[in-house]
């Protein structure tokens, strides 16, 4: 096909208006503007067109047209992602699934719910509550983020050590291929015959297809949950205490650590009663039957004391539990108050490497003259260093990105990975060759080709093409985002 055959913006919009209400085919700059980025707003691009279809047939027609003319398609849920995975393509269509916001059915006996991809994560739990059930994964953006986006990123949350990630909590998806053909992957059973395509689709960042329906598993709400907060004089001691709990055979529902910078920022913001002089703080939530929680809480309190906690506090009411979590949950905005901007990293490391990694990061922090606050999903090794910077200081964001890249390299070096839950998107595509060699990247690209030979689904994200890798290597010395507006959201 030559460029002459390719429809221009106006012509393409006209084709879409043929079957989508005109007001949901967006072409004007002012209305397009909110779509230029996702939660990682340092990376922006204006799309050609945004469409908001409301039926699967409409999505199919959008895909068929885009496939026919090789027009890039970027799927979008709530736009809360943190890796620029939903950043538009300048010559492409943003396919918003915002209107797919219905919970189709809940089956309380089978403990499952059929939902459209634009349903918010928390809305599933709210709807299931009357049956004593809830949806497990709870990313911190759960008020706003959608289940379709959760599938695309394989989202986790603070409870994933015990309850797993998205991939562990869905039964099936209905998906459209790049050609607009419908596929059902998975079933109402717990597995399907043959290779596990459901796992392959989960976390594929919109590169393999467009999810139009998701069947999720629901879990019984625990009878009881309590949280123990413990302060320590060093990160090492807190890390050892985490190991102590796991060794005792307890799998906490949530196990979070904060370093001193994060503790102070969170306390100033949320007034949760965190000890401001602690070097490390652990929040350990235990859930289950009333008897089980009582048994485990007593053990956890004892263990924290044994590992040298300077103070231990256990929630005695739901209000107190919520308060203790409030500090942790608002850690990102809290850090946002002590710095004009911050940049959130998402590496995962073997837990035993925590003290080493934090020491190295402090060294780099001194070297770059940029402060770092750390919040850590201590149970599963997922580290969120927040690099504090000021975007108005020329060159400071570039310095921040370089610092961030070195943190990710460090994570890989100690046996971890570059992203635990935020995804690769555009943001970490330069770091993919650190974690994967050329043959592995070729294999990833071959998988992509099996689904999307023309490469029009979310191009430029997730997996670097080899040409891409070389370009990135050449560019390594001067990373530069397209533009910068506001700070990275939490």
């Amino acid at each position, binding site marked *: 096909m030559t460029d002459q055959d390719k429809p221009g913006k106006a012509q393409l919009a006209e084709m879409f208006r043929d079957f989508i209400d005109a007001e949901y085919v967006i072409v004007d700059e002012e209305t397009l503007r909110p779509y230029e980025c996702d939660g990682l707003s340092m990376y922006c691009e204006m799309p050609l067109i945004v469409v908001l279809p409301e039926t699967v047939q409409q999505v199919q027609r959008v895909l068929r047209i885009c496939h026919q003319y090789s027009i890039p398609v970027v799927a979008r849920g709530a736009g809360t992602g943190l890796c620029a995975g939903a950043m538009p393509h300048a010559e492409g269509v943003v396919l918003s699934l915002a209107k797919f916001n219905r919970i189709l059915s809940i089956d309380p006996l089978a403990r499952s719910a059929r939902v459209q991809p634009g349903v918010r994560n928390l809305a599933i739990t709210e709807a299931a509550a009357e049956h004593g059930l809830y949806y497990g994964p709870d990313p911190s953006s759960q008020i706003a983020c959608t289940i379709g986006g959760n599938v695309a990123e394989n989202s986790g949350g603070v409870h994933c050590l015990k309850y797993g990630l998205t991939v562990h909590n869905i039964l099936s998806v209905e998906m459209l291929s790049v050609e607009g053909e419908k596929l059902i992957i998975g079933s109402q*059973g*717990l*597995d399907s015959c043959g290779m596990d395509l459901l796992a392959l689709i989960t976390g594929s960042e919109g590169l393999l297809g467009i999810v139009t329906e998701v069947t999720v598993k629901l879990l019984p709400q625990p009878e009881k949950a309590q949280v123990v907060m413990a302060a320590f004089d060093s990160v090492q001691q807190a890390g050892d205490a985490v190991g102590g709990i796991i*060794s005792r055979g307890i799998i906490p529902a949530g196990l979070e650590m904060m370093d001193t910078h994060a503790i102070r920022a969170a306390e100033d913001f949320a007034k949760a009663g965190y000890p401001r002089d602690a070097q490390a703080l652990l929040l350990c939530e235990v859930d289950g039957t009333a008897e089980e929680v009582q048994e485990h809480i007593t053990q956890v309190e004892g263990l924290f004391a044994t590992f040298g906690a300077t103070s231990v506090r256990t929630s005695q009411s739901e209000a107190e539990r919520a308060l203790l979590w409030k500090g942790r949950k608002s850690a990102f905005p809290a850090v946002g108050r002590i710095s004009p901007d911050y940049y959130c990293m998402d590496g995962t*490391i073997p*837990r035993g490497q925590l003290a080493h990694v934090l020491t190295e990061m402090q060294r780099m922090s001194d070297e770059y003259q940029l402060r770092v606050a750390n919040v850590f999903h201590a149970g599963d090794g997922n580290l969120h260093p927040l690099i504090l910077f000021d975007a108005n200081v020329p060159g400071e964001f570039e310095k921040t990105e370089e610092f961030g890249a070195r943190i990710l390299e460090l994570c890989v070096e100690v046996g971890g990975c570059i992203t635990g839950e935020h995804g690769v998107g555009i943001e970490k595509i330069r770091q993919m060759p650190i974690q994967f060699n050329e*043959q592995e990247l070729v*294999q990833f690209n071959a998988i992509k080709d099996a689904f999307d030979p023309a490469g029009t689904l979310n191009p430029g994200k997730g997996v670097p093409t080899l040409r891409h890798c070389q370009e990135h290597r050449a560019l390594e010395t001067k990373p530069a985002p397209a533009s910068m507006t506001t700070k990275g959201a939490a």
Partner: protein
Amino acid sequence: MADIAKRLQEQILSARDAGTKLNIIGGNSKSFMGRVSSGEPLMVAGHSGIVSYQPVELVLTARAGTPLTELVAALDEQGQMLSFEPPRFSNESTLGGTLACNQSGPGRPWWSSVRDQVLGIRLLNGRGEHLRFGGQVMKNVAGYDVSRLQAGAMGSLGLITEVSLKVLPKPAVTRTLVFDMPLNEALGLMNRRAAEPKPLSAACWLDNRLYLRLSGAQAAVDATVRQWQGQGEQLDDGDAFWAALRDQELAFFDGAAPLWRFSVNPTAANPALEGDWLLDWGGAQRWYRGDASMAQMQELAEAAGGQVSLFRGGDRQGEVMHAQSPVLQTLQQRLKQSFDPDGVFNPGRLYSWM
């Protein structure tokens, strides 16, 4: 206990050059599964041994030929377990075979499956490239999830050489309750119990008896036994029952009659098919013994919201896995092509067209 990856790689490369096919064999305990495959045997059991095990990280990495018995013994010493309770069809059953055949035991709905617990793998693809995917950490979303994709692929995408797994602490206490109950009543009760926040860890129905396993903290299990026991009894040797169920050593599995496996909606009415049934996984996995056609069984499975496979016995020349829609079939053939362009591995084992 040896690393023979180099030798395996050479065998794959020479098979590729010679245009021959390979039939992957680990402990040879699951050769009854899948279709009859042609190809020269590629013996993997020698590629064995635990590479690393950090109990406090809850992560174990082992070569694919490592026998499950060896893993279980090492974990046992630390009070930990393979939470997906893999069946040991023989003492030689391996980790790699367990993942390739996606085999998980009675605790699967509550404690996860082998595919759930896989964190990363190494794989020799059909080009003889030794690749590493995933990792040894709980959370890793970099790149496509090639590790879990292998679950159920039966070696069609490549030779798994190493697997990293999340492992879990063993529960402090386990009790089994048994109730006399017909199938339909048991099916309802299993699902209602599963919706309660109690330490249920397995639910099975066989020979008009419902078996419920409770596992966890002492106080929680004791309290639930008191609440749930009613007319039921506690089984003295519960662990032996669940192990025999897991390894298909119960009398139900004896004999030569074809064994069908239904993976369905746990609440679905049981198919109206005369003969012997066993319900596991709280109703989500159902076993049937008897002669039937694949087409008939597929219809029943679809009505129950799931899929069927001819697990053991019967005609192994025909299809033994639930038919795939044309678009899914094409997609899987393309995926196969992307990993194994010359079709070296396990031709026809999974499907005649694969």
